[in-house]
């Protein structure tokens, strides 16, 4: 089978983001970008399924500007077979992304689509669920373990109360949680090889999707600052403060 892995380019998880002084957004100029960590887990899982002999091809796809080719090349260097860029300068929102991905799914006919459970920029956690709805497929969000069966997949999900396992008919959508796997490091020779792997570019018009946003960001501000308090000398002072000053115990 084929596995499609939609990925996203975001500000590197180790960078402390700064709000722009004009409140229009966060500073992205000259900031280190990287593949969203949950997307790396998605790519890794697809590769492991292929390496276990259960998939023939892993295709990665992203939606964004031409610089997103770099992120796709990273996924190719990890081991994905080919890449698709749906190129646009619009900051496309999750529903329109899901519609574009639906177009890609219709062209490629994968049996499994694996996405990150959320991107660490807007923390939406929407795209996988929306794509499932549009395709009429089953969804397993926040996955920590996959077990492929004949015509179905069992997925263990990290839910608020613990773990839950559900079974989905294939084709299906899975979104990855942190503990599904630990993504591999990219090796230098593979970076060279990745440059020769196919990368196709489509426009949003090719896929016939209107990507006009419906959610307008009016302003972006710093969160309320929390100031550091005091240091206490020992446990008895701590308990005294909590009991008599803060009155929380």
């Amino acid at each position: 089978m084929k596995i499609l892995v939609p990925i996203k380019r975001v500000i590197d998880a180790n960078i402390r983001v700064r709000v722009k002084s004009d409140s229009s957004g966060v500073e992205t100029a000259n900031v280190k970008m990287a593949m969203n960590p949950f997307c790396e887990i998605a790519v890794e899982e697809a590769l492991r399924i292929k390496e276990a002999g259960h998939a023939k091809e892993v295709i990665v796809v992203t939606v964004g500007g031409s610089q997103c080719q770099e992120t796709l090349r990273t996924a190719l260097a990890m081991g994905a077979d080919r890449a698709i860029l749906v190129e646009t300068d619009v900051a496309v929102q999750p529903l329109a992304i899901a519609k574009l991905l639906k177009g890609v799914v219709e062209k490629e006919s994968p049996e499994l689509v694996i996405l990150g459970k959320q991107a660490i920029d807007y923390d939406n956690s929407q795209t996988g669920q929306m794509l499932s709805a549009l395709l009429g497929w089953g969804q397993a969000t926040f996955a920590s373990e996959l077990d492929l069966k004949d015509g179905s997949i069992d997925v263990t999900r990290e839910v608020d109360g613990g773990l839950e396992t559900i079974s989905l008919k294939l084709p299906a959508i899975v979104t990855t949680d942190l503990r599904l796997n630990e993504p591999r490091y990219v090796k230098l020779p593979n970076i060279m090889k990745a440059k020769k792997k196919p990368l196709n570019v489509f426009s949003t018009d090719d896929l016939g999707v209107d990507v006009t946003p419906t959610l307008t960001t009016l302003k972006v501000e710093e969160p309320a600052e929390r100031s550091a308090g005091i240091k206490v000398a020992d446990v008895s002072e701590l308990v005294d403060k909590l009991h008599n000053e803060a009155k929380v115990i």
Partner: protein
Amino acid sequence: MSILVIAEHDNNDIKPATLNTITAATQLGDDVRVLVAGHNCSAAATAAASIAGVTGVSHADNAQFEHVLAEEIAPLVVSIAGDSTHILASASTFGKNIIPRIAALLDVGAISDISSVISDDTFIRPIYAGNAMATVQSSDPIKVMTIRSTTFDAAANEGGSASIENVEVLASPGLSSFVRQELTKSERPELTSAKIIISGGRGFGSEENFALLDEVADKLGAAIGASRAAVDAGYAPNDYQVGQTGKIVAPDLYIAVGISGAIQHLAGMKDSKVIVAVNKDEEAPIFEVSDYGLVADLFQVLPELSAALDEIN
């Protein structure tokens, strides 16, 4: 405005996060209907009808809703959405799982994790792990969204007298089925609604050591949380994780023990009223957000804390 809230429940009671979501709903309008979908959940429907501010309850009771699979619940919500202007659920794993699916079926965007309601179409939500707050305005005809429960008060469990209507059940799409669950059993309060939380991090070094938190937690009546590092290392189960990608909490008292304070962890707890940090590294970033910091070895602090709590109790 006509607001539909999708309740999370255990067949008998409505979960606390849904009570916070109902408060957000009452800020949008006076007509607040609650959907209680499940199997043998009429007690939960009755409980929903008595919540202050609720004006109607839709009760969908069928075996196919027992495990609240998104594939079953989303079409049900769409079928009863009617003239709803807003559809809300809490930003729990339950709400995050179903809300985007509902939005896509309705061909509208979804708005995640709303922390304030400004007007019926304008909301504030955290982005970048809470390092920025975005004010967003939606032009969609129906606003479909999840609510960050820590920033809204809980609606009162009594005072309402809504009527309950039974909802016609649709045929199951048959896309998914429940296999099993392994829920963490605990007598302690639920993490997202606890008044006191004590959390442990990498500093514990092992699962056995992590259990040192139990005694103090029990004396405080606290829930136990964990940093991602502690969960990844296997010291604590996944549902203990507090942070950007885990649970968002805001208790009256949050005690962070052996947690350095990565941005992703702070994102999950920095709205707590009082924060205590215990860490032997005085440079740990957790001290930058703590009201009371104690630079000390947690293995000395926890037994002392346990003894000191006996004295004040």
